[in-house]
């Protein structure tokens, strides 16, 4: 076996430039796969984390009859006495924050401009509201007892040409189906770098939102953040809530995203296959050339008694060595590519996706799982690519091979 690899190594050394470029093709293929899988992992990971952090939480407790799409404000569709329910849930050790939130739909007007808005009543002091506080870019953050203050996102501020301190008119639905209008002061402008969220979501203190919508001591949901996303399936079975309430997990709350992810994965699979097919064709071409150039040598080896299986092994050893060399170079190239990619990230801005929260800058996230997967995949494809030329070589008739031109 060692001798076979020794011969294979020397055979590759005969045409060093060709062998180097073949290994480089493997390396570029692997580096591309690593970069693609890391970008996908980074984007998917950041998108789902953004969705959880900003919008869905890990878990929500809602009235069984609550319809999210309608942002219903009828009392029977809301959670009664939400602070009590939230404090019961907050008692679980895996829970980072449990806080009532009230959602209403309406629109914001300034002068002749107006924009639809998802009004969210929050407890400004809850850790669950940290991302909005952290994203403040002008003005001040909300306090729980603000009565005429609103926090708006940067895209909406730009659209309505608003700055902190400006007055704005907010119209929204109430529990009894009427429309309530009131003038607010833009207390602060925030950004979460997630256009889809920032362009529509405005925040009020929960008490003010309840008063305005006449949903006294009711909330649309109890927004729950856990210490880690992976704890979701552990916590959900342990939660006990009254029969009129239901528990929703982030997967159910982001069903569109999960579908998007599945679709993206299948497209990525096609890209993977294209890259691997190109890599395979380079290796097949290299080794086929090698077989044709060395036909007489194969005849000699056969004449001195080397069996076809051993000749097959010799060529597979060559493809294995190309695979090893290519994979080592590819891992280095891949890490470098990901590092360079992440220096500034890749700005995509507003992708125009609705229902999915995508940050405006893509960053790659290299995971051990992905690295192992694409490396093993590249290695196997490279070795298998050697099979075609190896079989060709092993089936050469010694007499015909010996007659070949040197």
């Amino acid at each position: 076996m060692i001798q076979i690899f020794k011969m294979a190594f020397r055979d590759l050394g005969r045409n060093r430039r060709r062998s180097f470029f073949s290994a480089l093709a493997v390396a570029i293929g692997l580096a591309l796969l690593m970069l693609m899988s890391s970008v996908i992992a980074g984007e998917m990971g950041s998108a789902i984390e953004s969705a959880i952090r900003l919008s869905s939480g890990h878990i929500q407790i809602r009235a069984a009859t609550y319809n999210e799409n309608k942002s219903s404000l009828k009392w029977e569709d809301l959670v009664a006495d939400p602070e009590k329910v939230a404090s019961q849930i907050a008692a679980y050790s895996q829970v980072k924050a449990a806080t009532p939130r009230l959602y209403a739909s309406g629109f914001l007007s300034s002068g002749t401009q107006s924009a639809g808005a998802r009004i969210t009543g929050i407890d400004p002091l809850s850790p669950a509201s940290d991302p909005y506080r952290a994203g403040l870019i002008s003005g001040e953050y909300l306090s729980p007892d603000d009565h005429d203050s609103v926090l708006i996102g940067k895209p909406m501020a730009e659209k309505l040409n608003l700055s902190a301190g400006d007055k704005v008119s907010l119209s929204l639905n109430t529990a009894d189906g009427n429309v309530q209008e009131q003038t607010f002061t833009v207390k602060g402008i925030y950004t979460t770098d997630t256009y889809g969220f920032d362009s529509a979501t405005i925040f009020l203190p929960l008490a003010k939102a309840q008063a305005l919508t006449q949903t006294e001591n009711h909330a649309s949901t109890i927004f729950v953040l856990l210490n880690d996303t992976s704890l979701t399936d552990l916590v959900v079975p342990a939660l006990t809530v009254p029969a009129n309430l239901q528990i929703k997990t982030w997967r159910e709350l982001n069903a569109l995203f999960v579908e998007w992810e599945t679709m993206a994965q299948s497209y990525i699979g096609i890209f993977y296959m294209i890259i691997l097919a190109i890599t395979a064709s380079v290796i097949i071409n290299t080794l086929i050339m090698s077989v044709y150039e060395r036909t007489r040598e194969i005849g000699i080896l056969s004449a001195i008694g080397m069996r076809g299986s051993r000749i097959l092994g010799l060529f597979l050893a060559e493809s294995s060595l190309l695979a090893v060399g290519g994979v080592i170079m590819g891992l280095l190239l891949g890490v470098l590519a990901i590092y360079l990619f992440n220096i500034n990230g890749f700005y995509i801005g507003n992708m125009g996706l609705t229902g999915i929260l995508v940050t405006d800058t893509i960053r790659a996230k290299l995971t051990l799982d992905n690295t192992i997967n694409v490396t093993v995949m590249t290695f196997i494809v490279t070795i298998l690519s050697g099979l075609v030329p190896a079989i060709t070589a092993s089936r050469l008739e010694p007499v015909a091979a010996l007659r070949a031109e040197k």
Partner: protein
Amino acid sequence: MEVVKIENITRVYKVGQIETHALRGVNLTIENGEFTALVGPSGSGKTTLLQMIGCLDQPSTGRVFVDGKDVTTLNRNQRADMRKGHIGFIFQFFALIPTLSAYENIEMPLLLNGHSPAERKARVEELLQAVDLADRANNRPDQLSGGQQQRVAIARALAPKPALILADEPTANLDTANGEQVMEIMTRLNKETGVTFVFATHDPRVIKYARRVVTLRDGLVVQA
């Protein structure tokens, strides 16, 4: 004792509709220890006959026995095993593996036969001495002259201690001096080791070394 026994073999090559009869019914026996030349003009069937004896090709009809075994019934792998252990080859074009040193080329059949590293080392060194190339052990073929390469090929053929060595025009690519040196080495090794040599040639300077001359013409043995 006979090393090779050929019974009425024919070999017909078919290209399209055209049939070429390379051997037309050859009968031949070669005894152990012979130093035999197959002679005849180009196209007489010398190389084809060597290929039949060497299990590189199979006759269209007839039987070939090597070391008492009917090699016409063997499958591809069994023929490879036969070549590995019982038959050594020397070719006109030297036929060394260019990426291997002289030492490694000679060692190759021993590796294929599963000899231990110590056995291989002893045997290769002995053979390098025998062909007077001990100082060239680490040279690759492109660092050796044609004569030296052919001597390495002789050593490689002898390495597994075969019953029979087949040489196809072994001096055709050598100048007179190197050609004679190669023939003298082959003659000496035949005498010293008793291994049977059968070589195809049409060079009168080579034929003079043979102790037996088998003449072929148009695929038939006309004089044995």
